[in-house]
């Protein structure tokens, strides 16, 4: 900077100054920090008039946000002849705060002592507020994740224990007294046990649902072809028993949580197998469409998966309902289950930044359509 100003004729120098004045908030102080010059932008942002600033130090706009050491460090740097850069929160005349990215350049005299300092600033209040907001959100998210974790542990232990005891003691009463209590009393006991068992299933399902968040693993390349094969082998018995069939080929590899992809496939396949028509063996077909195009520049490459079945289908007016936890479209005596499967699917897809929906007509089978990004940028 020193060299640059030296090399410039004074006309160019004043042009340069006026250019900087237009672009940035500028202040000049003497070696003790007393303000000798401020530009319009400085006055505009600080809401002080020029006369109120000249002859004062920057303490006028001190927001008391930064510790003393912050400014000591700054003075140490610039008084030794080095440029200082940092982010400072200042207080305007009306009491409002603003953030500026600040560069202070010292200019030394012939003996190497600082003569004056030029401070060039850019306002970054918006960015700072956004960062602060982001920090608050992150903190909130951390708290709610912790709560979810606590809840999961409560569900896994504290809720299960009394429930297991209801079942255990009902079982022991049944064992001890089955010959001596009346038949209807025995029937009540069986109902107690069945309800407790159902409660246990609900708790376990709730736990599965919360695990999508609490047991989330980082994304890595996952072959959906492999995932589909695994899911089919897990469901082998059910497929064979129902004379069913699962068809798929050429499924892509995407960045995902493989455990969760496995669960997604398992849930969607078993759904397709479960809701089959009485006389027709279930056939579930998985199709994939890869969309590499990033033409809009915004949408990253994604893939669409179609899980198409020949089952009983559903009325599309219930579309929102089927992805909600514990929502069912059928009585428990018709089809077993608590209504957790698709809710878990949606939670998994959400976590992967994708979407899930379905098309169907009653009696005409259903197609579940999942759209997932192929790659994820850091984090996820």
């Amino acid at each position: 900077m020193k060299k640059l100003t030296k090399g410039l004729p004074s006309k160019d120098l004043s042009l340069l100054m006026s250019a900087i004045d237009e672009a940035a908030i500028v202040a000049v102080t003497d070696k003790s920090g007393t303000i000798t010059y401020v530009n319009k932008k400085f006055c505009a942002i600080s809401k002080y008039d020029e006369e109120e600033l000249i002859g004062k130090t920057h303490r006028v706009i001190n927001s008391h946000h930064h510790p003393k050491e912050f400014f000591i460090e700054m003075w140490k740097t610039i008084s030794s002849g080095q440029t200082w850069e940092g982010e400072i929160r200042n207080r305007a005349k009306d009491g409002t705060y603003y953030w500026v990215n600040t560069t202070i350049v010292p200019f030394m005299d012939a003996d190497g002592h600082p003569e004056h300092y030029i401070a060039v600033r850019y306002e970054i209040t918006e960015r700072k507020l956004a960062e602060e907001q982001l920090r608050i959100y992150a903190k909130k998210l951390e708290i709610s994740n912790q709560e979810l974790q606590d809840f999961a542990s409560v569900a896994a232990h504290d809720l299960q224990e009394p429930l297991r005891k209801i079942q255990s003691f009902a079982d022991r009463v049944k064992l001890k007294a089955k010959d001596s209590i009346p038949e209807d009393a025995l029937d009540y006991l069986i109902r107690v046990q069945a309800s407790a068992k159902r409660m246990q299933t609900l708790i376990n399902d709730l736990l599965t649902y919360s695990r999508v968040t609490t047991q989330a693993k980082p994304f890595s390349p996952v072959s959906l072809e492999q995932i589909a094969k695994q899911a089919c082998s897990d469901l082998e018995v059910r497929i064979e028993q129902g004379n069913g069939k699962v068809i798929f080929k050429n499924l892509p590899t995407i960045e995902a949580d493989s455990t969760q992809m496995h669960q997604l496939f398992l849930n969607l396949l078993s759904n397709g197998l479960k809701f089959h028509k009485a006389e027709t063996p279930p056939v579930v077909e998985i199709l994939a469409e890869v969309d590499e195009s990033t033409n809009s520049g915004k949408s990253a490459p994604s893939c669409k998966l179609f899980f198409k079945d020949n089952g009983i289908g559903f009325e599309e007016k219930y579309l929102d309902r089927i992805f909600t936890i514990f929502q069912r479209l059928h009585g428990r005596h018709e089809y077993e289950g608590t209504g957790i499967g698709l809710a878990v699917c949606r939670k998994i897809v959400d976590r992967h930044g994708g979407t899930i929906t379905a098309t169907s007509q009653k009696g005409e089978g259903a197609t579940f359509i999942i759209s997932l990004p192929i790659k994820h940028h850091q984090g996820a």
Partner: protein
Amino acid sequence: MRCKTSIPILVADDDMDDCEMIKEALQASRLLNEVQFVHDGEELLSFLHRQQKLSTQANNLLPGLILLDLNMPKMDGREVLKEIRKSPELQSIPIIVLTTSKAEEDIMRSYNLGANSFITKPIEFETLVQVMRDLGRYWFEIVELPDCKLSEG
């Protein structure tokens, strides 16, 4: 080597109903070993340390097997498992986690901390009796147990 039936089993469980149930199941399984009970992690550790001090070359008073509940007051099963596996005098005692949970992370964590088995408490009493019978057969008939005191000299 201790006589197999004289090797005590230690049950750590804060739930009195479960303790009672385990006791009855052990009786029903005709396992002759003495059964001792503690009700939280701290009590378990101080019990083990006391037994260890009282033991002699000839007379090992440490339990041959610990049935450990995971959720206990003061110090839970996971913490106590960690402590036992860190202690040179106690680390070789086989520990069977016997808990309500069947959560994957509990299973994983227990084995990582050095549990020898993980069993979810059965609901039916008959099943519990069967589990106790199998445990007894496995740990006192099939398996050779370390004689903690001797191995430590």
